[in-house]
């Protein structure tokens, strides 16, 4: 198992180099000059050129990439063109917020989505099944932006129970994590329902039932355990997406996370920050996938990595 983990960790290096290469050249294909954006609309062409030189953008592109790779090897992500701060500092200031929101949201989504999916599968076409599937449909179709603003209006403006935005206390996490979880909970509930329906109709569940086992045991110990692999895959993928795709929620709730940093940096053509943040996302995504693969082995004894 340890060998497998080490091997997987080593395999991330070429993947990350691949990401860096693609990103580096794709970003530079975008129209727009970072020096001009930084200099502001009123700066003279001489000042813009001055900034371009300071950022090293006047050098040939291959030279810029080589310098970037050398820095990367030293775990130096460079300095932000906009703030002049080290990119690592910019990322570390926001990464814990992103992780916190993603972890709370995925936990909420699992806590509500999995039981809802199971209940719905156990009582197919009952009122509770219709309730779950209709709610899931709502959850998946509701625009995040709209849901977020509605929650703000109800819980912050009208009821004054929760803060509308920002960070600082556990209350600040509630509304953004609910907003973020809404889509995922619906997705997980639907996934759980369909997988459970499939496993509940398989021969081993019929055998378990004919053995006289209680329905609760049949559902949880036999059917759910076998339905877990696809659910874990979905949860893992959704968690990976939550890490990078929370920009709308972060914007509505003034949550200082990585998603917003990336969007702001793209709008300012701040290449070092975009490169650094996406590289970190790539790394996190690989790690999440590794953890998911390891959980497979824990859940299913047939899977071994020796």
């Amino acid at each position, binding site marked *: 198992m340890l060998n497998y983990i080490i091997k997987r960790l080593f395999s991330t290096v070429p993947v990350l180099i691949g990401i860096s290469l693609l990103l580096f050249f794709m970003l530079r294909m*975008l*129209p*727009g*000059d*970072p020096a*001009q*954006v*930084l*200099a*502001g*609309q*009123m*700066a*003279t*062409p001489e*000042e*813009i050129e*001055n*900034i371009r030189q*300071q950022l090293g953008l006047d050098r040939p592109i291959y030279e810029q990439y080589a310098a970037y790779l050398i820095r990367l090897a030293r775990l130096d992500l460079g300095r932000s063109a*906009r*703030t*002049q*701060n080290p990119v690592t500092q*910019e990322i570390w*200031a*926001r990464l814990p917020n992103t992780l916190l929101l993603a972890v709370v949201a995925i936990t909420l989504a699992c806590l509500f989505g999995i039981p809802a999916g199971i209940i719905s599968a156990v009582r197919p076409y009952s009122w509770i099944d219709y309730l779950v599937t209709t709610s899931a449909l709502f959850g998946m179709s509701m625009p995040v932006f709209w849901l977020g*603003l509605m929650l*703000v*209006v109800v819980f*912050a*403006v009208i009821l*004054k129970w929760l*803060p*509308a*935005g*920002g*960070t600082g206390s556990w209350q600040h996490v509630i509304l953004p994590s609910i907003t973020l979880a809404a889509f995922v909970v619906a997705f997980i509930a639907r996934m759980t329902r369909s997988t459970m329906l499939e496993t509940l109709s398989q021969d081993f569940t019929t055998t378990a039932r004919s053995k006289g086992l209680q329905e609760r045991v049949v559902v949880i110990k036999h059917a759910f355990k076998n339905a877990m692999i696809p659910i874990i895959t979905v949860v893992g993928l959704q968690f990976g997406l939550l890490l990078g795709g929370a920009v709308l929620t972060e*914007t*509505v*709730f*003034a949550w*200082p*996370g990585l998603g*917003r*940093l990336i969007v*702001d940096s793209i*709008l*300012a*053509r701040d290449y070092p920050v975009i490169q650094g943040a996406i590289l970190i996302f790539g790394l996190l995504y690989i790690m999440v996938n590794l953890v998911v693969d390891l959980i497979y082995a824990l859940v299913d004894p047939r899977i071994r990595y020796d």
Partner: protein
Amino acid sequence: MQHIILRLKNIIWILMLMAGLGLILQSAEARADIAELTIGIGIDADTLNPQEQTTSLPMNMCELIFDTLVYQTTDAKLEPRLVAGHEISSDGLVYTLKLRQGVKFSDGTPYDAKALKLTFDRALDPKMRVPLRFIINMIKEVSIVDDYTLQITLKYPFAPFAPSLSQVLVSPISPAAIEKYGDDIRQHPVGAGPYVLKEWVKGDRIVMVRNENYYGPKPTVAQLTFRIVPETATREAMLRAGQIDICYKPLPSNLAALEADPNITVEMPLDTRVIFMGLNCKKGVTANKLVRQAFNYAVDKKAIVNKILFNTAVPMEGPVSPINFGYHKMEHQYGYNPEKAKELLKKANFDFSKTVQMRTPNGRYLFDKQVSEAIQAYLQAIGVKTELRTYDWPTYVAGLLKPIEETELEVFLLGWGPMVMDADLTLYGQFHSSVNPPKGLGAAHYSNPEFDKAIEESRLEQDPQKRLALLIRASEIVWDDCPWIWLHTEKFVIAYKSKIKGMVVTGTELFYPTYVTIK
């Protein structure tokens, strides 16, 4: 005995009445010691080094930390701040600045001519990143006369130099802090302003506390917290929910609701920023002056201001914002007159088969795309075929500075908001021949020797009245030539709790909660 008791009763009644009156008076009295004010803003500061700034909001923060040499009042007059007074030589080349004495930076370093010279030297050093250096680029030399006197010699006379000293670009930075932090001063700003940076949590908040050593009157607010809330609707919700006290730039479409709320005050003074549709004066169909004038008649600017911008702007009636020194309402106005526009196009032998290329940024200025779409519709209504392309700001701005041979600009939306309230910055900065791209920012490629002469003379003229006449002359020439579709002057909108009194809000998009009181 009864008499005494009666008198005592009367005294008690009077005392009670006085106490009650006192309580009433006390409750109505404005409180001048406020623990904290929270301001909801849309963006985080990139740097708090005032010399690196280009954006009005972080400049506002810098001003609270660093103060300025002089202060330009809302009616464009100059008041002394860290410079107590200045003298200008008769040839307009030498400015002698008398520094305020007894001032210390918030770290205790004394403020003197040496400190101010260091600030100027850094701002003029080509190795430093100073995007707005053009404001002081005419400085030839800065020399120390004595501990509290600094002499600035210009390369050429430049009449708007004195108001330029109101910019944070030349706000003194503590020499000790420069030595301690070097370039990282942008994270650790130390100035002589009314506030000191306490905490900066990236993307979340910037907290400032009162500078107890401030040379001016003690600020009434002990702590200012700038909370970064990018979504305007959330900022407004937070203001209504009482989670912030001041909402920076609320959404115009919600202004009516905010104004109807008795707990909220909305202020919107006129801004220096004008929004215009640039017309290429050298290339394409708009090279013809008659076509440019026709386009001005074709667009209903009042309707744009009313229907699209919810009256958060006023139509332009002169080539610069009305709050600038040098503004003059032009005698001739380009009122909405599509028939006259068609007539002028006919006179210009306009080729109606040609498609005019329009460009607009999306999200840079208030409802920029929608305004451009309206103009497109107005032009189509007089028979002009148009194609409108939308770009994000970095892509858009990259196309602005191309020389005439390469430029693809025909009709393009842009804004121009100088920080100094002087018409020169717009008239010279946009219309003088020398600012035609790639050398400058006059993307309309306008050139008129008569205009150049008037504006050049205005820069040399030291008498304000004569200078005003020259600026008006220049304005009349360019107004007639129509290098722009003259659209509107924006308003700077800010909303805050009604109990806050005494907030100073300026047309250069600055606000000062320093001496507010709470009722």
